[in-house]
């Protein structure tokens, strides 16, 4: 048993390492255009995986994720435009702002059931978008808000941007993995499976639900900030509901309960969208169909099962022999508060 575990663990690391090396070497043989595609793909991977943490792990199927991304982007954009604040500081503020809003929203939707949560977060997202559009005197609305490039006007090469976005993605993935595999992750899964039982065992449901909202919205805000300083022009269109739908599709088709699968879903779908450009509107029809079919017949996603087969990771979350709720019950988890 132990040997097999060690082997599959090593296999995971080897495969992960190979992917990482490939990702690192891409700029040596890819053209600028494809670097651009991958940068955007990493951006979506960041959003898809953080959404999967919120939805898959914490069970909160929020539709406000793109709103937090936009908050990150517009915060740094507006601070830069009106107060001359530099990109890195702006991104930090953007991330904090998104976290703050995440805190507010997370607290508000604590008791909401799935449909109400979805509705409320859609409303939040749409209201924000209308404000960004309506107050175009300040935000420049559809004309687009100009944003200084992250590395200044002189560096026109895409290569440093590629590595930066990749680094951001990896750091956030590491952070999310750490969170998911820690006690917090355990509590979250317990809450997701049986909120009342977990509460009965002393898990501070409120704290962990809100914490997940804050962390994931901060990641979304961070992504938005970097995106803004890369693309250098943002409009409220970055947060329309169909974009949220795309991110959801990526996470679900990838595998909503695996951060890595969701991230891969993001990368693969975004690259496919570029590659399949001639198909025009039909590309999204195919992904829409894929989303529906995956939901109905392959709840774990399409990439996650492949990963599991290849790497021999633990069986799917839903049918663990020992549910997380029970695990929580076994451990002494009376909360530190």
């Amino acid at each position, binding site marked *: 048993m132990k040997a097999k575990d060690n082997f599959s663990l090593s296999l995971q690391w080897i495969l992960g390492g190979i992917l990482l090396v490939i990702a690192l070497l891409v700029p040596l043989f890819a053209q600028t255009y494809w670097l651009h595609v991958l940068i955007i793909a990493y951006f979506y991977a960041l959003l898809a995986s953080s959404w999967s943490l919120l939805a898959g792990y914490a069970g909160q199927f929020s539709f406000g994720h793109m709103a937090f991304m936009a908050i990150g982007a517009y915060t740094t954009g507006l601070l830069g435009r009106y107060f001359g604040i530099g990109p890195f500081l702006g991104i930090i503020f953007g991330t904090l702002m998104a976290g703050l809003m995440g805190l507010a929203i997370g607290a508000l939707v604590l008791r909401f059931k*799935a*449909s109400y949560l979805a*509705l409320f977060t859609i409303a939040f997202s749409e209201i924000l978008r*209308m404000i960004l559009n309506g107050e175009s005197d300040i935000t420049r609305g559809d004309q687009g808000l100009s944003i200084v490039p992250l590395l200044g006007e002189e560096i026109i090469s895409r290569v440093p941007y590629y590595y930066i976005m990749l680094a951001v993605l990896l750091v956030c993935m590491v952070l999310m993995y750490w969170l998911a595999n820690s006690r917090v992750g355990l509590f979250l899964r317990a809450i997701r499976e049986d909120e009342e039982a977990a509460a009965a065992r002393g898990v501070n449901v409120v704290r962990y639900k809100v914490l997940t909202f804050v962390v994931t919205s901060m990641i979304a805000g961070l992504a938005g900030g970097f995106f803004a300083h890369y693309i250098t022009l943002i409009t409220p269109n970055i947060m329309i509901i169909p974009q949220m739908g*795309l991110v959801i599709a990526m996470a*679900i088709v990838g595998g909503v309960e695996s951060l890595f699968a969701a991230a891969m879903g993001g990368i693969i779908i975004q690259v496919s969208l570029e590659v399949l450009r001639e198909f025009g509107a*039909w590309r999204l029809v195919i992904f829409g169909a894929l989303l*529906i079919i995956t*939901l*109905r017949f392959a709840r774990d996603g399409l990439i996650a099962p492949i990963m599991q087969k290849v790497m021999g990771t633990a069986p799917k979350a839903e049918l663990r022999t020992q549910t997380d709720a029970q695990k929580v019950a076994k451990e002494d988890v009376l909360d530190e508060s």
Partner: protein
Amino acid sequence: MDYLLALAATGVIMGIIYALMAMGLTLIFSILNVINFAHGEFYMLGGYFSYFLLTLFTGLNPFVAVFLSGLLVSVIGLIFEFFFLRPMHLGRIERPPEYAVLITFGLSFFLQNLALAVFGPYPHRPTSFFSGAVDLGVVRVSTDRLTASVLSLILLGLLLLLINKTWIGKALQAVSQNKDAAAVVGINPLRMNTIAFSLGVGLAAIAGALLAPSFSIMPDVGAVPSIRSYVIIVLGGMGSIPGSILGGVLIGLVESLGAGYFPDPSRGLTYKTSFGLIIFALVLLFRPRGFFGRKER
């Protein structure tokens, strides 16, 4: 004063049509306990089917076209319900509430892009029911819009009759109140689900077909009515039929008066749908069951 009355009248006229579409949504929620996030897309399909029927069969009576497109969309709804929603009620799906949200949202994503790919992005308009406009004293309104409103009112009335006086209606009510008890007395809840879903999306389609001559059709024409319907049913109380009627009229008024009296008139129109959304957010926070909704079950 004239302006206020004109705005109010328009608000009520539109509100009645909104109510028809919202009633479909509330019916679906009441029986299936599912919020149909694709409701707007069925509205859109109603408009397109009506348009194609009228262009293919040029002599066709526009009212017949509306009815037929409602029927066609109901069939589509039936098929979707059978394959994708019924398994939920048969216990074959894990975590049904999240599944319901995602699958109907996925359907919305799919249908919108399908319409774009198949029908193309250009706006179209089916022929009017009647041309011209009607002077109602306090306001002048296009005959098409008035026709749509009057027909919606009639349909609403018929639906209320259906729900309260017919066997099917009572069966639907029974299932919405207590599925298991209804099953015990011999009502097949699964069949009621299918009926409710098909009827619900059919109503959305009819609303879409009725408004198509006034607003023209495009693949994304259902996005705004979709959100508006959520607002209405939450305001009126999810699952409450009279709630959806009251909610519809109220939202019609809010949008009309809000846009008209927004402090900065040059921007009032851009915020039109946000008024309903803000009310929506507030209701969700402070009185989630709206006017007539039941307490959470």
